[in-house]
């Protein structure tokens, strides 16, 4: 008998995604590897356009057919490239499910929230509509929506933003997935609601022993929720490690730039540091390190080859040629 407790539920190896359209090839993801066991949380931090969302959708097998996928994505030991369309859709929502950024647009406006949750349960477990509705009610209870029975009959527009996002979590949990993907789930919400949701998500993730990939551009959110952090830039992980490693002892110049451009209390009167320039055009990635054109520490060697991840210490890795000098600096 195979022991699954120690094998990763998600195993991504050298994943690359290229969109080929009208003569352009857009390289959204360029060689990402990571693996995640049940109960682990990986937070991916990056700017808009860094490839975070594309990466999530690839794990979900929900990527347009004109995309070319390289490398390997395994979910619960199954390579998703080997699955046909039906097997892939059977996996979505059952083994892997996703929480979207905008609960306002991620629900179908003309079906009740209860119907939409029950629909997923019926699809994957073939239960009756009545059983599925009863489960949907329990799920709304689980995510702490008050008077769940009544809320089942609500249409999405009849709920507040925070409640809709709770309902979205309930929907994602409907079939006890082993992997939960969250695409900036708190970005569209008020700060107070944000923290409640993070706490809830973290609690549910632990109780249900799920692997969670959490995508955000908010450092505070990352610090709150994660075990491990990966910083993504131009489709690559430029720095990975524990929250303490990456957020308290950042090594890669990009991570440092990101952290110093974050606003927090006690900065009044200081000029905000920004990273000059803008992310590279994914159609024409620079030959060497993608961050070199914006990097204040760049050397000639940086422009020759894309740097491999180097160990900073323990599991703390950074894809930078100057790791040694910068880590101590």
């Amino acid at each position, binding site marked *: 008998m195979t022991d699954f407790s120690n094998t990763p539920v998600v195993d991504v190896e050298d994943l690359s995604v290229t969109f080929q359209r009208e003569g352009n090839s857009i390289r959204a993801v360029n060689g990402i590897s990571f693996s995640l066991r049940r109960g682990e949380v990986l937070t991916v931090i990056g700017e808009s356009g860094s490839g975070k969302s594309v990466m999530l959708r690839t794990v*979900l097998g929900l990527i347009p057919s004109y995309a070319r996928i390289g490398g390997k994505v395994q979910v619960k030991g199954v390579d998703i490239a080997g699955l046909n369309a039906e097997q892939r859709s059977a996996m979505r929502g059952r083994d892997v499910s996703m929480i979207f950024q905008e609960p306002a647009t991620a629900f179908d406006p003309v079906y009740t929230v209860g119907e939409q949750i029950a629909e997923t349960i019926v*699809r994957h477990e073939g239960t009756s509509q009545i059983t599925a509705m009863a489960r949907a009610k329990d799920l709304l209870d689980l995510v702490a929506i008050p008077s769940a029975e009544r809320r089942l009959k609500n249409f999405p527009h009849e709920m507040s933003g925070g409640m809709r996002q709770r309902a979205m979590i309930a929907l994602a949990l409907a079939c006890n997935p082993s992997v939960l993907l969250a695409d900036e789930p708190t970005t569209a919400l008020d700060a107070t609601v944000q923290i409640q949701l993070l706490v809830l998500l973290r609690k549910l993730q632990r109780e249900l022993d799920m692997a969670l990939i959490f995508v955000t551009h908010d450092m505070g959110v990352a610090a709150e929720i994660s075990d491990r952090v990966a910083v993504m830039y131009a489709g690559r992980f430029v720095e990975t490690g524990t929250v303490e490693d990456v957020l308290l002892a950042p090594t890669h110049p990009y991570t440092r730039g990101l952290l110093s451009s974050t606003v927090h209390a006690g900065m009044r009167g200081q000029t905000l540091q920004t990273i000059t320039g803008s992310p590279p055009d994914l159609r024409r990635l620079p030959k060497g390190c993608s961050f070199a054109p914006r990097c204040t520490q760049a050397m000639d060697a940086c422009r020759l080859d894309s740097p491999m991840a180097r160990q900073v210490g323990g599991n703390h890795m950074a894809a930078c040629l100057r790791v040694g000098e910068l880590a101590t600096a």
Partner: protein
Amino acid sequence: MLQFVFRRITQVIPILLGVTLVTFALVQIMPGSIADMLVPPSAPQSLKDEINRIYGLDRSLFEQYFLWLGQLLTGNLGVSLVSSRPVAGELFAAMLNTLQITLISAVIGFGLGILFGAISALNAGKWPDRLFTFVSIAGVSVPHYWLAILMVTIFSVQFNLLPAQGMGPAGFPTTWEQWRPMIMPIFTLSLIPMGVVGRLVRASVLEVLSQEFVQALGAKGLRDRQVRMHVAKNAAPAVLAVMGLQFGYLLGGSILVETVFNWPGTGKLLNQAIFTNDMPIIQATVLVLSIMFVLVNLAVDVAQAAIDPRMRR
């Protein structure tokens, strides 16, 4: 929902009153009087006065309107000046004939429009989309009467396959003899609704497909067929609105087609009444067509609200 239906119905009442007011005013604006119609210009003034008195034309407009409205509510639409028969009976018979071809045209036009539009949207940019886009635009652009005459020239005159004019034996169409004369009018009438609905279905479906929830439906593992059901329900309200309008246009707009094919419906009735200055017929036909237009749109509103809860406010 019930509350919404009730509110919409109460909103329709003033619209219907407005319709009666406009139709009444229409006849007042028209040149000529009933007396001029019925007797030669040389007739003595006393005779004309007598006619005006019989038709109530000597009273104030205000009185005339309410008398007419009162008669309407009892189902009395007046008497034709030409045939001297009650307008209600003539109009009812014509309406049945018109509904016979417009209902079938609507079913065919809407059905093909939905089919073509959906295929186009699901294959956007590919050859089926281009083909159906061409068919739809051609359907909307070709003038009704020109196409009707062209078809008569080809199928009736050249090949003698279909009758150029008229209607088969009266009654619910079951026999080939009844269907044969309907083919060309129905074909002509269904082209525009097919084109308009086809274009709209394509646009609405593409609009819905671009929304994030469609991706979310895929993310929770629904099959393509199930996702398409969601898309259809979301696209339906906009399509229903246009179908309501198109059906209204079909009822009123069949004048040209009915005239070319000599189909004894409301269009032909109205056309004849205009040429013979038969005011009671004109007034009643315009009124009934307008009321049907209003009622069809009421039905569409209710159907839209039943599908999309956001419209119930």
